[in-house]
């Protein structure tokens, strides 16, 4: 029996338009300039010609893609064929699918369409991106891929069946936005924008002509620090507002639902995103909390699978969130429940946190010694005796980091899970179940050898947060921990085979 290939939705052409326009940005710019420069009446036909050529350049690739693309489910495999000149047929065994994402931009939502992304363990990017299907086609496809009994999709039934396991309030989402600052991101964005050809010229001309000349004329006394301080403050205030607004827009109506051992996250005000992950595919759970969030009693939770988790599409310009965020905001009181949900086989309620070796302080000091000597020797050239101060400062920094590491780093072995906690201003927890471990490594730097310390690294198949490591354990302890987790991993069956 030959597979029956299905086509994507014809309106995909409309969805491809903005992308095609973005790709042809430079061409459009040139054509636009040409049209403006001519300006006279006799060029009207020419303008029309340009525009129609442009239209063809945009529409033809989309049409070709529409006519060449097809997908089918055949004998337990998902088949995807594409290409006109170079034909390509991709076969994905259904039991190797790691997670499935639904993505809707505003345009998708207006047209009632969905982009379906299917990920396997092969890498960070989506292995199959079926763009675009109708809501119903997408839901039936997902049901077939995940082994549910496929029925025709109805939003009403879907709403009745769903079991919400976590849903932060709008207030909490605003709060998490407020606990972060995007000032640096904005800075990067501004510089990125300035690097674009049309802006570049104007920007550097402006700098040449005016800014530098003005700055040179202003006496040094007037460039006072209050101005700069105010600017910085304003900048951070803007970063703060942007962070709040973007978090709100992005995670609006966030909810996690659970069904048949699969969790589904759905969120977004304009661009809607839906992601389905089988619980058994979860390799590592990661929780992070900065100092503001610690004070507010909230944290962020990530779960990593061997596939990406809404990673970017390969060969396409569209890039979306790559961090495997499970929930942007998690109330402290809910954390235990979410840990039980994501790692159901393990009891993580009362981990017995242990410290790393006290020698880690001396190890940090010793590790910092040679670099400090080198830097202060170089600075002798400018600072003469001041270099001694540089040396003392650097050593103090090393001592401080050693003390902080010893105070904050904790690890625990709890029901076969390796748990670690590190970080001072930003605290991060990692939970790696023993049967998800792929390899165990003990390593020693020359300095660690002096103090009889070692690092234990447990690697999983997760695409992000791949390894969980404990720095500076006493060697005996390191060997014991490594042995125990290695035994767990040798006993268990490869969890990469656990499917939907």
């Amino acid at each position, binding site marked *: 029996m030959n597979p029956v290939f299905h086509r994507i939705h014809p309106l995909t052409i409309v969805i491809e338009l903005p992308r095609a326009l973005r790709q042809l940005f430079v061409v459009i710019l040139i054509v636009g300039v040409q049209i403006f420069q001519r300006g006279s009446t006799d060029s009207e036909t020419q303008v029309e010609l340009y525009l129609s050529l442009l239209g063809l350049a945009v529409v033809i690739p989309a049409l070709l893609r529409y006519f060449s693309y097809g997908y089918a489910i055949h004998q337990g*495999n998902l088949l995807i064929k594409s290409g006109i000149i170079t034909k390509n047929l991709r*076969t994905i065994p259904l039991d190797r699918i790691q997670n499935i994402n639904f993505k809707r931009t505003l345009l998708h939502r207006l047209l009632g369409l969905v982009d379906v992304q299917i990920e396997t363990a092969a890498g960070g990017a989506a292995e199959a991106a079926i763009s675009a299907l109708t809501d119903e086609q997408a839901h039936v496809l997902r049901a077939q891929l995940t082994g549910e009994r496929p029925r025709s999709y109805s939003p009403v039934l879907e709403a009745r069946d769903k079991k919400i396991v976590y849903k932060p309030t709008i207030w909490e989402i605003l709060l998490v936005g407020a606990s972060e600052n995007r000032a640096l991101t904005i800075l990067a964005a501004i510089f990125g924008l300035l690097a674009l050809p049309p802006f570049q010229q104007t920007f550097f001309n402006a700098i040449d002509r005016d800014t530098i000349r003005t700055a040179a004329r202003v006496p040094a006394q007037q460039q006072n620090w209050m101005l700069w301080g105010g600017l910085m403050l304003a900048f951070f205030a803007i970063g703060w507002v942007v962070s709040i607004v973007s978090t709100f827009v992005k995670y609006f109506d966030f909810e996690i639902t659970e069904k048949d051992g699969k969790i589904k996250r759905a969120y977004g005000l304009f661009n809607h995103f839906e992601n389905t992950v089988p619980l058994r595919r979860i390799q590592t759970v990661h929780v992070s909390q900065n100092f503001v969030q610690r004070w507010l009693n909230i944290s962020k939770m990530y779960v990593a699978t061997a596939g990406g988790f809404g990673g970017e599409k390969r060969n396409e310009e569209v890039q979306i969130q790559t961090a495997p965020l499970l929930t942007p905001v998690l109330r402290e009181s809910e954390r235990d429940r979410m840990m039980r949900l994501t790692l159901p086989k393990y009891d993580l309620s009362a981990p017995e946190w242990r410290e790393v070796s006290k020698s880690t302080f001396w190890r940090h000091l010793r590790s910092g010694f040679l670099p400090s000597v080198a830097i202060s020797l170089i600075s002798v050239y400018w600072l003469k005796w001041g270099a001694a101060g540089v040396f003392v400062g650097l050593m103090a920094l090393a001592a401080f980091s050693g003390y902080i590491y010893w105070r904050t780093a904790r690890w625990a072995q709890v029901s076969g899970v390796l748990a670690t906690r590190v970080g001072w201003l930003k605290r991060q927890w990692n939970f790696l179940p023993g049967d998800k471990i792929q390899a165990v490594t003990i390593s020693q730097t*020359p300095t660690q050898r002096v103090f009889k310390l070692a690092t234990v690294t447990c690697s999983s198949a997760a695409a992000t947060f791949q390894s969980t490591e404990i720095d500076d354990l006493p060697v005996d302890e390191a060997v014991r921990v*490594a042995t125990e987790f290695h035994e767990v991993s040798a006993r268990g069956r490869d969890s990469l085979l656990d499917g939907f």
Partner: protein
Amino acid sequence: MPGRALETETWEMLEPQVKTLWRVENLISTLIIALMVGVPEFLITRRLDNWRVPPLAITGGLLVLSLGIGQWIVGRTYHLYRFRLGEDDLAVAKGVFWRSWRFVSRNRIQHVDISAGPIARALGLVNVSLFVGGMPTAAVSIPGLTEARGEQLRATLIKDTPKQALDEPIAPMVAPSDSGPQLPDLPPSPIAGTAWQPPGLEGLAEIPPASPANDTPPQEPR
């Protein structure tokens, strides 16, 4: 098992010829570096009037340093590079200054590579690399084995891998293989003629059903 501390004296060593391989490799890479640094140095310093250092001094220094350290470290590396094939795992210890001991369970192995460069081939050596899930590069690699030992190692590492996985029940697959999907078809595409076969793909489309648990690539006859 990692137990018994990190004593690797009893573990298996590489073939001594691997030292020759590493020495030759060090020589070649040193020469390449010398060329890459030496040519620009010669061209630049020739034009500098107040350059009082003897010609090609930097290159010479680098050459001596790279050769000296490189050739000295070969012996240490050889002495410390050990591996041990256990009941259900493989352990590899290596490193002179930064040392590491890595343990890989046999049931985690995705595939095993045997490779040999021209120099290694001349010496009759092969390199065995082990890959596990989630690591794009080899989790563990053992250079400097005789061809026979490499082959034997690969055979033992791969032999039992799928058996254990097959013994345990696997989550049921969506479509039981040959009976064809009993699932109702997707709703028809809005454009007529959905059962459409591309002209060039007839042969390609007949794909054997996925075998559920056989993760190991078929062993190629050598």
